[in-house]
C-alpha cells in the first residue's frame, strides 16, 4: 500500500512539474486560468540626435533594394513630404488613387469590466539619446471579487531588435505610492515567452503606470511600436 501511495505521489509531482515546464507564461500560476488580457499600444516617435548617426553597413542608395517600407508617422519627421519639383522636371504631376473598405461588426466583451485600461494608446516623442517620461501614462484596473489573482505584464516585442530593445522602456506601476525606482519591462519573446508578475493580490485594484523611456543615441529617427500586455489569471 505504501508503495502504491508513493507511486501516485511521484506521478502527481511529475505531472505538475511537466505542466509548469510547458505552460509558458502561465507556468507560475498553473493552478490558475487566464481570464482576460488587455494591450496598451505604445508608439514611439524618435527624432535623430543633434550629432547624427550613420549606422555601419547601412544600405547605400541604389544598392539593389527595390523597395522599402518607410513606416514613418506623424511626429517622426516633417509635417509633409517634400515633393516639390523643379520647374524643369515636370509640367504636371500624375497621381493615382485606389481605396479599400474596412469593416467590422462589434459586439460587447463579456470580460470588459474584469480587466481594463483607461487608455489604449500611448505616444512618446523624443530625441535619440534622451530620456522621456510620462507620469501615470495609463491605469490598469482589476475588477473582481476573486480573493486571489495574479496580474502579469510585459511588452509584446522589442521596438527594433537590439538597436532599440523593449527593456529601454521602464515602468513604475503602483496602486497608491510610486515604487522607489522603475524597472524595465520584460519582452515576451526575449524572456522565454513569459511575462513578469506585476502583482499577486485579490479584489479590486487599480495600478497607475509611470513610463520612462531611455532612447538610445544610435536609434535612427522614425516611428517604433510595441504593446504593453496585461494578463489576469485566477
Amino acid at each position, binding site marked *: 500500500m505504501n508503495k502504491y501511495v508513493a507511486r501516485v505521489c511521484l506521478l502527481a509531482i511529475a505531472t505538475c512539474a511537466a505542466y509548469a515546464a510547458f505552460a509558458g507564461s502561465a507556468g507560475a500560476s498553473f493552478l490558475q486560468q487566464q481570464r482576460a488580457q488587455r494591450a496598451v499600444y505604445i508608439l514611439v516617435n524618435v527624432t535623430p540626435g543633434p550629432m547624427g548617426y550613420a549606422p555601419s553597413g547601412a544600405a547605400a542608395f541604389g544598392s539593389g533594394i527595390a523597395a522599402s517600407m518607410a513606416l514613418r*508617422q506623424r511626429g517622426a519627421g516633417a509635417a509633409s*513630404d517634400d515633393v516639390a519639383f523643379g520647374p524643369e522636371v515636370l509640367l504636371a504631376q500624375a497621381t493615382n488613387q485606389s481605396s479599400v473598405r*474596412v469593416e*467590422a461588426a462589434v459586439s460587447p466583451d463579456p470580460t*470588459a469590466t474584469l480587466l481594463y485600461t483607461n487608455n489604449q494608446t500611448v505616444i512618446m516623442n523624443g530625441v535619440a539619446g534622451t530620456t522621456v517620461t510620462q507620469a501615470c501614462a495609463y491605469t490598469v484596473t482589476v475588477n473582481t471579487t476573486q480573493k486571489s489573482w495574479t496580474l502579469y505584464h510585459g511588452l509584446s516585442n522589442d521596438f527594433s531588435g537590439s538597436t532599440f530593445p523593449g527593456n529601454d522602456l521602464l515602468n513604475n506601476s503602483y496602486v497608491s505610492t510610486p515604487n522607489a525606482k522603475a524597472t524595465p519591462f520584460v519582452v515576451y519573446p526575449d524572456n522565454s515567452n513569459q511575462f513578469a508578475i506585476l502583482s499577486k493580490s485579490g479584489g479590486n485594484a487599480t495600478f497607475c503606470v509611470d513610463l520612462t523611456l531611455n532612447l538610445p543615441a544610435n536609434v535612427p529617427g522614425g516611428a517604433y511600436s510595441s504593446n504593453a500586455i496585461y494578463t489576469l489569471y485566477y
Partner: protein
Amino acid sequence: MRTRIAACALAMAAIVSTIVPVRAATGGVTVKWYAQALVKIALTPNYSSPFGAVKAAFGGNQNTPTHGPDASPNSGAVDFGAVLAGSAYLYKYAAHLNVYTNDNSGFNVYAEGAADFYNATDGSSQSLNQTLYYLPSANGVTQSDPNTGFSPSFPFYRTAASVSGGGSFNSAPTINYGGSYPPAISTSMNPVGDFYYDYELRVPPMATVGAYYVWIVYTVVPR
C-alpha cells in the same frame, strides 16, 4: 563720263555680290520636352489565402483566419467580421499594392482614412488612429505571413485633406491633397514596386455595438 563709270562700278558690285557666296548665319535650337510622370496602381484586397482576421495571441496559439461576408479572394472588403470590444485582431493578407511608374526616381505611397471608423448602426465613430493599424506583410506565395495581432504596427490617420466622390458604404471616395501630402507609409526607389500589408484592429473597450466601416484611400505619387 564719270557718272557712267560710277554707275557701271555699282552695277558690277551688285552683280558680284549676288555671285560671291557669303557665310550663312547659323544658330543652335534647343529642343526641350517634358515627360509627364505616369503612375499605374493595382490595389488587391484579400490577395492571398488564408486571408482574414485572427484574434491577437502569442506564440503558437494562432487560429485559422476567418472573415466577414463582404470579403472574398482578391476582391471585396477587408471584413474582420464579428469582433469584441476591447480586443485586438490581425487581418492577414489585407491589401497588396502593385505600382508601375515611368519615373526612375521611384514613388511614395500614402494611405489615409477618408473618415473615422464609423458605426453605421448608431452613427457614432471611433478615432481611426486608435482603431486601425497597418504593418508589412508577405506575398503569400514565396513567403508566408509571420505576423500576429501583437506585431509592430502603425496607425492609419483620418485625412486632413478634402474628401470627395462619396465615402458612403458603397461609394469609394477620393482625397484631394492639393500637392501637400502626409508622411508616406511606404517608399520605393525604383519605378516598379509591390507592397503587402496586414491590418490590425484594436477595438476600443467603449466602442458601441454595431457595424463599422471606413474607406482607406491609397495614393501613389512619383518621387
